[in-house]
């Protein structure tokens, strides 16, 4: 993963939120590394990546943020099904952004929308690079998880 690709991916993902509410742009918090059980919020938009590395990228969000995005899109229903649909939409955005940023050498899985309990059943990479995103009073985490092995060389 080249730094330019990483920067492009992060920028276009933040741009997505900035376009949703131009008056209130997202703020990137101080990044950190997390080891062990993943940091998870209510819903997770996830894609798996394989190429130069193997791993995944996910955006994990609180219900409040998804409800806000639904409202911005004119949808006042915020049932769990609606929230999961919104989470799926964000997965599609992540997938598109990853394709654009990381180029043709990467295989990107079908984007997935998962509840917290569903993600907990997955075998996610134990070491993650976490970027908090503060937006309209909510905090999401944009996470890159790479696996150890030859892919991480």
């Amino acid at each position, binding site marked *: *993963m080249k*730094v330019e690709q*990483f*920067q492009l991916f992060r920028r276009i993902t933040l741009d997505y939120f900035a376009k949703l509410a131009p008056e209130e742009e997202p703020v990137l*918090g*101080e*990044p*950190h*590394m*997390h*080891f*062990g059980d993943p940091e*998870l*919020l*209510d819903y997770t938009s996830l894609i798996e990546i394989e190429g130069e590395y193997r791993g995944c990228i996910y955006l994990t969000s*609180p*219900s*409040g943020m998804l409800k806000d995005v639904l409202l911005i899109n004119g949808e006042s229903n915020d049932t769990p099904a609606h929230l999961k649909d919104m989470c799926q939409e964000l997965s599609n955005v992540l997938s598109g952004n990853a394709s654009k940023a990381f180029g043709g050498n990467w295989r990107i899985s079908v984007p997935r929308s998962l509840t*917290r309990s569903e993600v907990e059943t997955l075998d996610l*990479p*134990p*070491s993650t*690079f976490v970027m*908090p995103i*503060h937006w309209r*009073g*909510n*905090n999401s*985490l944009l996470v*890159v998880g*790479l*696996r*150890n092995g030859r892919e*991480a*060389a």
Partner: protein
Amino acid sequence: MSVLPHSVYRRTAAAPPAGTRLRALEWALYFAVSGTHTAAELARQMRASDAERDGAFARLVTLGLIEEQELDAGEYVRALAAAGNSDEKTLGEFVTGALRPEEKEASPKLVTSSPQAENRIHTRPALAFKPLPRPDDPMKEKRPMKVSRKLSLRALMNLIERQAGNRDAGQLDIYRVFVRVDTSLLKRNGIETLRFTEDRFINDPELERAIVRSVKKTLGMDCPESLWVEVA
């Protein structure tokens, strides 16, 4: 609830329940607490006032989202130093200086017999501090402190960032180094979350070897001696 500036908090095991709504500062502090930085440091980083800081920490504690981390004496003194202001103090004032003005005022008043003595006391607020009794053998106090050399993660991360040329590239390189380190080794040394600006001294020789090996394998770089610092 009173929040001392040098208190250190960590997230509780319980995740925020679905539907939890917090103010932006509260979320920011929730994600920032990791048992390594004082309340004052985090509040400074978020540019929060004392009142905002106290309110946010109190609410997070009340909601059961964070809890205060217990410290040993050395950690406590480091926390005081990290939280405090830069005014010159005596040792006694330093160690008790974290008391807030209102707490100082609430400390026991001295009973005086003359107005002059009372004036003297009022110019310097009484501190609720009793010196420890003298040790039986004063010479024990003069023994040299044990010093050991430990790998400083901050020194390592600074070096990698400098080599990479820019912050993003450096942070990615640091992450790639840690991807190769067994997370169970990190966790057994209490490293579950690591910010790129924080310091940890590695006590565990196995973890130290794993990190040094990964730096070599990932970045082709030998760790210079300057990454080891003397720690009392």
